[in-house]
C-alpha cells in the first residue's frame, strides 16, 4: 500500500512539471554508478516512563526515558540505468552507524540522569525512480526528483538482534557534469541529493511513521 502511494506521488510530480513526454536528458551514456557520503538527521523515537502501579491503580514513575536515533554520516552507492524518456531507475545501498540514545532521568531515588546508548549498524537497500527535470540546452546542471522504496535493517550493537522495516525516500537534487566524451567512460560528475526518509518499524518503539532529513554528496561516472 505504502509503496504504491510513493510511486503515485512521483508520477503526479512528473505530470505537473509539464515536460515533453519524448524528451531525453543530455547526460551522456545510459548507465551511471555513484559513490558518496550521506548525512542522516536525528530522529526522535519517543518517550516512555517506567512506571510502578499504585494502590489505586495509578502510576508511580520510577524513571523516565526519551529516545532518539542520533544524526550520523554514512556511505551510499548507487547504480542507475535509463529506462524511459526522462526516467532512470536506480538500485542503491547505504551503510551508517547511528547512535541510539536514551536519556534516562527523573529517577525516583534521585540517581543522576544519564544517557544510555548503543551503536546501530544500519543497512538500507532499495530501488529508486529518478525523473530529470528539463534543463537549459547545453547546461551541465541536471536537476532531478526521486522517490525510493527500500528495505531497512538495523543491527544492534551486540550483533545478536536485528530490527527490520520498510523505508521510503522522497526528494530531489542536482547533478553537475564535470566531463563527457563519446566513447568508453562517457561522463563523470558530482551529485547532490536532499531527501526525506520515512520508515516504519526498525528500532522505532511504536507503529508510527518515523522521518528524518538526508543529504547526500556523491561522485558519479556514466557509461
Amino acid at each position, binding site marked *: 500500500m505504502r509503496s504504491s502511494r510513493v510511486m503515485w506521488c512521483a508520477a503526479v510530480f512528473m505530470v505537473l512539471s509539464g515536460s515533453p513526454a519524448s524528451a531525453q536528458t543530455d547526460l551522456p551514456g545510459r548507465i551511471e554508478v555513484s559513490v558518496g557520503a550521506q548525512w542522516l538527521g536525528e530522529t526522535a523515537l519517543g518517550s516512555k516512563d517506567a512506571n*510502578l502501579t499504585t*494502590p489505586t491503580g495509578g502510576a508511580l514513575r520510577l524513571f523516565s526515558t526519551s529516545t532518539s536515533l542520533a544524526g550520523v554520516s554514512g556511505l551510499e552507492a548507487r547504480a542507475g540505468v535509463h529506462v524511459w524518456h526522462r526516467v532512470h531507475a536506480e538500485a542503491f545501498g547505504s551503510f551508517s552507524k547511528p547512535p541510539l540514545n536514551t536519556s534516562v532521568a527523573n529517577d525516583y531515588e534521585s*540517581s543522576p540522569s544519564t544517557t544510555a546508548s548503543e551503536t546501530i549498524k544500519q543497512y538500507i537497500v532499495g530501488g529508486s525512480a529518478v525523473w530529470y527535470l528539463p534543463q537549459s540546452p547545453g547546461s551541465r546542471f541536471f536537476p532531478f526528483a526521486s522517490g525510493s522504496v527500500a528495505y531497512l535493517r538495523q543491527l544492534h*550493537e551486540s550483533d545478536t538482534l536485528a530490527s527490520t522495516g520498510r523505508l521510503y525516500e522522497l526528494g530531489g537534487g542536482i547533478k553537475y557534469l564535470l566531463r563527457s566524451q563519446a566513447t568508453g567512460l562517457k561522463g563523470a560528475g558530482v551529485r547532490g541529493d536532499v531527501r526525506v526518509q520515512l520508515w516504519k518499524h526498525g528500532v522505532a518503539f511504536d507503529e508510527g511513521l518515523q522521518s528524518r532529513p538526508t543529504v547526500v554528496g556523491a561522485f558519479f561516472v556514466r557509461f
Partner: protein
Amino acid sequence: MTRVLAIALTVLVSVPQPAAAYLKFGVNVGGRQVTLKWAQTPVRYFVSARSSVPGVTVSDFEGAVARAFARWEAVPTSSIAYTYGGLTVARPGEDDGSSTLGFESHPELDRVLASTSFIVDRATGALVESDIFFNSTFTWSISANGESGKFDLESIALHEIGHFSGLGHSALGETELRDGGGRRVLGAEAVMFPIAFAAGSIASRTLKADDIAGISDLYPTGDFSQRGSMSGRVTKNGQGILGAHVITFDQATGELVAGFTLTSRGEFSIAGLSPGPKVVRVEPLDDADIDSFFDVSQNVDADFRVLLFNRLIAVPHGGDSGSVELQVVAK
C-alpha cells in the same frame, strides 16, 4: 521429605539459597541447587471446608481462589495448570499429601496476611505439597471493586499462588516507612512484591511482566523460547556483590522485569525478556526486609548507590545479551 515454611506478604519469606532471578526458590539436593517447582501438572488443590469469615462464604472463597489460579494459568508462555479437587476437611499446614487452601486464625502473626508452606521431596527437590493459609485475624473482601478497610482475597491469593507454584518475591516496588512501624507500598510492578497494597486496594489482581517472566521461566512453553535473557555481573570496587536488584525496562512495551545478583561474584541472569534494547537500573534492596528475599546468613550488600547504566543492552530473540558488567559505587 521436609516442610519448608515460606511466610508471604507483609513479612518474612524463608528462601533457602535462591537459585535464579525474580526470585525462584532453590533447594539443596545432594549438594546441588535445584529449582523448586512441581514435577507434574496440573497441580491439584483443595479448599478447606472451614474457609469462611465474615463477608466471605466458602463458596466466595472457592470463587476468589479459582479466579486467581486462572490468572496464572492464562499466562501464554507458561504451562502451569491447576485442577480443583473440591472441599476437604483437612486444614492448611497439615502434612497430608493434599495441597489445601483456607482461612486460619493466627492473631500472633499480626503482619501476616497469608502464608504458603511446602513439602519438598528431598531426593528430587520437587514440590510434593503446598498449603496456603489466609489469616482470618484480618478482614477480607471478595467485592469486585474492593471494600474500604478490607483486604482483597483475590489479590492476596494471586500472590500466594505464585509461591505455591515455586516463585519467590520480587523487589519491583517502592515503599515508605510508616510511623507505627512497617512499610507502606507506594507502588509495585509485581504481584510477587512482598508487601501488600493497603486494605481496600484491588490493584494487585493483575499479573505484571515480572510475574509472567517468573512463572514462564519455571514452567516454559515453546513460545517462551522466543523470549530473551540478560546476564552479567554487578561489581563494586571490582568485587561482585550479592543481592543487587537489577531492573530492565523495555521502552517499546513498558515492561519492567527484574532479578537479583545471586552469587558472591555478583552474577545475575534475567530470563523472559521481550527482545529489544533495554534500559538497566541497579538498586540496593531497601524497600522491604532483606530477609524477604535472601537467607539472613547470606552477605547481601545494600551499601551502594542506585545506578542508571549508560549503555542500552540489546536482548535477542531466544538468546542472551552476553555478559554485562554493571559497576556500582558505595553510598
